[in-house]
């Protein structure tokens, strides 16, 4: 049976025999079909899945042309209908709808793991059942359980899998790297250990919904940068210190870290969302739904814990802040990684397709995350293999560029690359590939991006 075959319901006569078959080899099923007046299905070699004689119904899997043929023969048949659990929302919640998420997206984050460096994640929380594939605490004297509530809510926005509200990457897994005390604070040495663990784990995205003082040179910013060099996308909350300028801290200030500010339900950058710039870098890099008190993001709350925001019921609570904007981007990155198998391509797609909200760069960065647009862009890239992608990017742009510059001094080359990047003639991905190929150093890459 080809993948295009779908399930159909075929109506027949009622028989007193209730029989659920596993196929036409079943003698009782064949008899039931004859009694229902549906023996034509046998003659047409239709793949009958189930026969419900007492209900006068048959479930069959077939191609559309077979279905049309049955209709032309006078049978009553129809494609199976879609049902939802009572109480499930037919439409995605506002935060997911705003970023172009829908149930029809072709990617769900399958095969991708998001590390959540936070207060812990409760694997028993609604929507997180079976999600947490790794858990480790770096907080002295505490296990990986979430004693605060923040980390569970962050994980749910990124990867929550229930239909009531749900997260962005519903088939992605979560690695719980607990690095925060129950009072919501932590220290450099604890976070560095957690990031080091992430560096050596099989994860593709690292979500950091926290911050502290410092710019791109702060140890945590630089450690987060190194994740990118190892093929893991660092995503950080920009901070809740807005609307003052220059309030994006570490690790969001890292050059390679995707810093995420927040918009409210009215699609405006939230007052609290931290503003750039940082040391000449445009920060935040983009914005995503973070909500505010007039429109919260609904997320999961840990079991046996008081909610950290307005409770919805025993499962959910309202939350707001750039902490919850960041995991929208982490979830999107999981979808894009599934599509492209490249963290650099995922990052570029996210940034290049952001929707310009018309607000200042230091507030919105590139604009609002748009998953639908980002996946649309990667569909073109996805036609080829990663090798083709690399050859295309390097071959078309970087090789001639390096050829022209080969006689120039290294300093001139860096300045030239800087100018090309600023004028949009060379992309982040191309620069990143140059770094990966050893053409430029990490320090030079940092300078170019500033």
């Amino acid at each position, binding site marked *: 049976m080809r993948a295009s075959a779908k399930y159909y319901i075929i109506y027949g006569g009622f028989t007193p025999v209730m029989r659920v078959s596993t196929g036409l080899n079943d003698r009782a099923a064949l008899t039931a079909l004859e009694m229902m007046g549906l023996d034509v299905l046998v003659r047409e070699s239709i793949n009958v899945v189930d026969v419900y004689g007492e209900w006068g119904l048959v479930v069959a899997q077939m191609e559309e042309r077979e279905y049309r043929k049955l209709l032309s023969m006078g049978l009553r048949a129809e494609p199976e209908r879609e049902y939802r659990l009572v109480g499930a929302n037919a439409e995605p919640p506002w935060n997911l709808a705003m970023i172009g998420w829908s149930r029809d997206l072709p990617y769900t984050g399958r095969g991708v793991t998001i590390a959540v460096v936070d207060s812990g994640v409760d694997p028993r929380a609604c929507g997180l059942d079976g999600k947490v594939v790794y858990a480790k605490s770096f907080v002295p004297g505490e296990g990986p359980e979430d004693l605060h509530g923040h980390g569970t809510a962050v994980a749910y926005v990124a990867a929550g899998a229930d239909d009531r509200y749900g997260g962005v990457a519903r088939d992605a897994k979560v690695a719980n790297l607990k690095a925060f005390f129950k009072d919501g604070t932590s220290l450099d*040495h604890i976070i*560095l*250990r957690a990031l080091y663990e992430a560096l050596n784990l099989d994860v593709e995205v690292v979500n950091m919904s926290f911050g*502290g003082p*410092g710019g791109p040179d702060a140890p945590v910013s*630089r*450690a987060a940068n*190194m994740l990118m060099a190892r093929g893991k996308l660092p995503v950080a909350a920009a901070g809740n210190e807005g609307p003052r300028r220059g309030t994006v801290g*570490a690790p969001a200030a890292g050059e390679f870290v995707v810093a995420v500010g927040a918009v409210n339900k009215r699609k405006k950058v939230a007052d609290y969302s931290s503003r750039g710039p940082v040391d000449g870098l445009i920060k935040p890099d983009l914005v995503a739904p973070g909500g505010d008190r007039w429109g919260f993001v609904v997320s999961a709350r840990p079991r046996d814990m008081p909610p950290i925001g*307005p409770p919805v019921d025993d499962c959910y609570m309202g939350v707001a802040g750039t902490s919850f904007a960041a995991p929208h981007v982490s979830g999107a990155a999981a979808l894009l990684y599934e599509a492209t198998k490249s963290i650099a391509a995922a990052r570029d797609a996210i940034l290049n397709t952001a929707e310009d909200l018309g607000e200042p760069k230091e507030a919105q960065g590139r604009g609002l995350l748009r998953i639908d647009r980002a996946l649309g862009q990667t569909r073109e890239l996805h036609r080829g293999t990663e090798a083709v992608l690399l050859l295309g990017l390097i071959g078309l742009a970087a090789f001639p560029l390096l050829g022209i510059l080969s006689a120039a001094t290294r300093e001139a080359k860096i300045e030239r690359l800087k100018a090309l990047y600023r004028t949009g003639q060379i992309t982040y991905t191309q620069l990143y590939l140059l770094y990966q190929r050893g053409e430029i150093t990490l320090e030079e890459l940092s300078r170019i991006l500033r």
Partner: protein
Amino acid sequence: MMSYVKSGDKYIAKGAEGLDAVAVENGAEGPDEIPLDRRLVLTVERAEVAEKLKEKCEVLDVLDFGGEAFVVLAPGPQSVKAAFSTPGVRRVDVERVYRLYESER
């Protein structure tokens, strides 16, 4: 008591030869102002620098991220002295406090 030579925004222990200059970050104006109850996070040119530091003070962690290597020192005057007198130390940070960007309640 150790004294330090300042060059621009860099400091090294006075009399220590052949050192890389190191900078003090996170609020302290110079080595003398580093609070003695806070851990230090050192950026080192390679993880092996930690071996020299271990001879002079308590090293809590060595984390080599491949391109960036960090050494965490226990609080105290020995750590401050070691940080500013050991070749291969590029930068000294007083440990920062981080916060979750909590929800509006």
